[in-house]
């Protein structure tokens, strides 16, 4: 399950970066009327990172950094706070201001395209690398390799990304350099590739033109790709094992607790459910 959740965060980072680039690009180009030189985008990114200290805190406990901060130093500060050493299937210890879910929620809820959001997204990707992408942790995820490698020709796969990120970190990049790499290779290139494959439907949010970028006024949503989770959670609720997932304080029912602890339903539960169904069926005949 941890890998599935990690993959959700992983996908979210790139979708949110596309949203950041797309909206900032539109703002810089009169809603797409002009072409933005690529160099100007990288200046925007660096400027946003430099200004991040004055951005709203978003309820996060991010260390103060700027464009020139080394990623290694930033990563050290993160891992001092967040326990990323737990095993794959253990419950991840929470951190009120810095764990993956807090970072995700802050980016989602504040939905602002500022430097602090960029830093939160970089932090999120670095924490995921610590949990899933370090070579020494490969053995823990041997069974999930196919899941980590998923992506194909058109999508970013976690395993390949982690390999490239590890190589990139060997060059001791700054946060601005890392952000530029993420945006260029894993946001713009990937987005162009997917949008081109969808032609003649025009789904471009950004496209490289000569030495610049053209932006298009189309929504770039960023959300979990959690349709399976929603379907399953609805199913377990409808089976009567848990109260609705819409409630923050959802609870297991007696049957659900029995299933969790005994790995089986209470004796007679299925027969009771079947009898109810048969009674309902005969009433409608």
């Amino acid at each position, binding site marked *: 399950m941890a890998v599935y959740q990690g993959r959700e965060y992983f996908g979210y980072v790139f979708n949110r970066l596309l949203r950041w680039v797309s909206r900032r690009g539109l703002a810089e180009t009169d809603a797409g009327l002009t*072409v933005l030189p690529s160099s100007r985008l990288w200046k925007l990114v660096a400027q946003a990172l430099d200004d991040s200290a004055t951005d709203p805190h978003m309820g996060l406990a991010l260390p103060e950094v700027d464009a020139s901060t080394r990623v290694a130093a930033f990563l050290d500060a993160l891992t001092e706070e967040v326990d990323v050493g737990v095993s794959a299937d253990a419950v991840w210890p929470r951190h009120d201001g810095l764990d993956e879910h807090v970072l995700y929620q802050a980016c989602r809820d504040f939905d602002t395209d500022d430097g602090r959001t960029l830093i939160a997204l970089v932090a999120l990707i670095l924490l995921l690398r610590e949990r899933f992408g370090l070579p020494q942790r490969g053995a823990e995820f041997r069974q999930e390799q196919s899941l980590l490698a998923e992506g194909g020709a058109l999508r970013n796969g976690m395993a390949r990304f982690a390999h490239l990120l590890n190589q990139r970190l060997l060059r001791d990049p700054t946060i601005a350099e890392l952000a530029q790499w993420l945006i260029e290779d*894993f946001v713009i290139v*990937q987005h162009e590739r997917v949008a081109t*494959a969808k*032609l003649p439907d025009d789904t471009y949010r950004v496209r490289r033109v000569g030495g610049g970028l053209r932006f298009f006024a189309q929504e770039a949503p960023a959300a979990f790709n959690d349709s399976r989770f929603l379907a399953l959670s609805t199913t377990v609720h409808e089976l009567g094992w848990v109260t609705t997932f819409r409630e923050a304080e959802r609870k297991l029912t007696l049957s659900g607790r029995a299933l969790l602890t005994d790995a089986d339903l209470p004796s007679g539960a299925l027969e009771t459910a079947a009898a109810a169904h048969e009674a309902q069926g005969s009433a409608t005949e």
Partner: protein
Amino acid sequence: MSAAPRPSVVIPELLQGQWTTALICTFGVNLTFFETRLMTQLAQVPLRIILADDKQLASTLGEAARTGQRHRLANKGYVAAPIRHPRAAHGKLMLLIGPASGRLLVGSGNLGYDGYASPGELWHVFAYSDDQPQHLSEFAAARSFIEGLASRQLLDPPVIELLLTAWGSATWLPQAPTAPATICSNLDRPLIAQLRDLAPAPVTELIAHAPFHDADCAALQELITRFEPKQVRLLVTDATSADPVAIKRTLGGDAKRIIELVQVTDEPAAYIHAKWVHLIHPDTETLLTGSANLSRSALLRSSFNGNIEIGVVSTRPAGTFDDLYAHLQRKRVSDVSSLGISYQGGNEDDTDDATSYPVALWSRLDGDTLSITFSDVMPEETAFSLKDHADRAIVAVSTTIDGATAIVKLDKESADRLADGGRISVRIDSDDDRLSFTWPYQLSHLRGRLDKAGQRERLPSIGDLPAQDAELYELLRELDQTLIIDRESVWRIAKPGNVREIDDSEQESLRLDDLDWDRVRRDPRYGGYFTRKRAAGLPPTDIQVVLAAIAGRLGDLGLDTSRPDTDDEEDLAHEGDAGLSSESGDSDEELEDELTRRRLPISTRTRMAFDRFVRRYASALSDSAFIDELGPIPAATNAVVFDHLLSRLLERQGVTPRWAIDAQIATWRFLWGNDDLSTVTENLDQGYSRKRSSFGS
């Protein structure tokens, strides 16, 4: 077809036709666009070659390698090859050639969505066919341009081999123009010199636009100096790369030298990448369009010390080129500095520095032999580390180095993996900092596509008809492309560049006098009916395949119709085919019909298509003038094929009985006659007639 350039060309819409080669010259290259948008339409074209600026192509392929894109078919199903020029290889054209026809586009767009489908480009479109030969010189000039690249050793040797094949399949295309052509390149002479030769004096006005200028506007200055226009109108956009100070200096304070900001009226955000120099004379106008920006390398120099450029220069009566501006909105600019434009280095005309270590320039895979040619002579003791697209090691059995070329013998498993397509990463002495990528040319596979071209995969299944409706539909398409059954079939052969579906009501309007029967009789489809004098050893014609499949139901008769194995993904699919599936309906009604057909189940669509095919055939049987022109052997052969086809279709309810039974009776009457009609077999020679008598008795 192309007196004036067209600003709103959507190139993917111009690819339809029966071509043997599609050749693209481009500066920038978006292979994803090519593979997803153009390949399907060029699926039936055996030879597809992209020639791109070497540094741009290397950048594209490097990005693909960096970001995990395989491009499995690059240099396997199509060619993606560099033009190795020290400066920018900037010419842009698309040349589509078939056995008797061609289409040529020369313009400003790079291979990609913006270059091929946006209103910010300009393209000249030329067509050639037997009855429209007026642009033959343009086609010859395009060929001469490509051959000029080859003769200057700017292309890789495997590409030069394939180009020879391409020219060989278009015998109508001369090596060089025999008459003046409007297409000109700077391979030997600067474009500005050629423009000067062709443009009459005086020049009353010069209008120029390009997205890229020199830092000092030298090319603009030279245009003004050479042509001495009374007025100058410089067109710029928000994205023009030019120094406002240099523009002001070049134009000076003369009130007759003005600057205008241009936008595409319907799409103000469109990037105007087109380039043109428009010279207006008292009674005529001269226009240069194409790939050349307003820069020294493009306009003032030959390829000896400049870029490689290609364009079109034409002089026409005044007003001919008015459409050039019809889609543009122009606004006078009093102070160019107010636009916020600037000269941006790293533009299309700039070149990058070479890498400091030897890189793999190109490679070739022949069975288990991989040869890699490097940019420099390699010491004999050099060790290579090779990996495939998935970063798996490639096992070399032996490696020999000869100058700049390494010959690597591969183990079988590695050779099989590489043959599946994709990149090879090459590390010299296992050094990650001395890494390069190469997509090996697989000539046997590329040539194999040529061998497969023209083969009809479904024809042998006519004996028992395929079980699946989709396959049955394919069979129908192939039959429609093989048999000459009515005037529509003839019209398609005679007008291969303008294929469209013809409504039944239009059949009569296709007058026999308008159909070029000499051309039809030269066509291989017509020749396929006549097999008696066919040389031994040649593969069977499609007609022979059909007849053998039908005869095969009677036992071991006829020809062996087996086909070579075909590769799944690189099959010559039928997207670009013309015939029943042609989707180039002109009117909205036809489009609606097509949409309606698409919504129907495949079984219904197939039956409707067969109904139409059968009606066409039956109708033509009563068209004695057509049958006379067609001749007895094709007519009798068609009757045999349809007699069989109708029986099998009726058995499986694949055709509406009303049409099928009428057609079958008409066929029998046609073959065996009745009291009122003479029969086709009366016109056959004695041998055929005897067979007819024995069948009829």
